[in-house]
């Protein structure tokens, strides 16, 4: 009898947790081409960020203007009961992430412009966002994307 009495609130709590989930589902056409258009190198210093923010694709193309364009697609993987409950407690739902693009010239040196700034985005659980940047000129060859959790 006692066990039954305990089970009822536990089930209620579980239901409540599931009910509190507020995540984003996505649908897209199946990619016909490789997901990423370039081979990337990643330097991970924050393993939590790596696991919470999944990098889905890294693309680079040339805009009509001749300037290179970079686009990185990321998904907030902080879904599920416990992950969402924790991010809710820590005030990180939606997930605040900061990013900054840096473009390099032919010599591989950074080109400092007004286009290279730290920005913040709020990403809903399950949501995919696209970080995009246009190179400041058509002599740029490579880019680097800095990512960090925003406190």
């Amino acid at each position, binding site marked *: 009898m006692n066990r039954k009495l305990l089970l009822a609130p536990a089930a209620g709590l579980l239901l409540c947790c599931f009910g509190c989930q507020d995540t984003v589902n996505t649908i897209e056409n199946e990619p016909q081409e490789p997901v990423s258009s370039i081979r990337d190198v990643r330097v991970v210093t924050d393993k939590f960020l790596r696991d919470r923010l999944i990098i889905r694709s890294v693309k680079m193309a040339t*805009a009509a*203007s*001749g300037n290179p364009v970079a686009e990185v697609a990321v998904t907030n993987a902080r879904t599920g009961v416990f992950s969402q409950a924790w991010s809710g407690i820590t005030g990180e739902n939606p997930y605040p992430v*900061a990013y900054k693009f840096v473009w390099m010239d032919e010599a591989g040196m950074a080109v400092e412009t*007004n*286009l290279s700034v730290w920005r913040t985005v709020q990403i809903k659980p399950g949501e995919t966002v696209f970080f*995009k940047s*246009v*190179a400041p000129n058509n002599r740029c060859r490579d880019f680097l994307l800095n990512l960090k959790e925003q406190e």
Partner: protein
Amino acid sequence: MKFRLLLLPAAALAALLSSCGTDSHYVDATDTTVAVKNKDRMSSSDWVVITQDAGNALLASPLFQEYLEAYAMDADAAIKEAEAAGEKITTREKLTARKPLLMLSTIQNNTSEHIDSKLLTERLREILFNSGKVRFTTYAAGAGQSIDAATAQARQLKKDPNIKKRTALQKGTVHAYDLSLAGVIIKQTAKEGRSNEMSYTFSLTLTDNSTGEGVWTYTKEIKRQHTQAALSW
């Protein structure tokens, strides 16, 4: 022993004094994530954000690129025509003629705040100029933008007896602009209980002044929310 007893309050005093000191240090002006933001008016980081967004849109615009390519073709034809007519075209003009000349026109301020739109226009001009797509003029500008009076003053030097005649600048050599950057900034606010919302809408246009047609247009709203603490004064 007495010496040690004296050391303790001295250390405490030193700690107290150091904590009372004010700290002023440089921060990265392009880091909008740590910037202090005014809760009820435009902040430095808002200009940084809108400059980046508008700059990216401008550099990637296919229609603006179409205009630039057509301009370059027309410029080539005009130079050939002028040379055929016997006009002397300088090397400098030949080098730069394929790029349109940009003028910063007026940014209308439809907010109740004092806004210096040069914080946006001059940064956008720098992005465009450094991308190699346009030239810019400092001879003419819209209301609220900077003009360099030196170009006009340089023509006055011709009358100065100390000036070598050959180096004095001639009248009729300043180039007329081809493109103008104009726009409007609109502010909207909303309030519900302790929550406040403030947004700025930036609407920018680049106009081909030979035809009066727009070659690029961009509208972006920057929105910030602020919730007042329950116990605040």
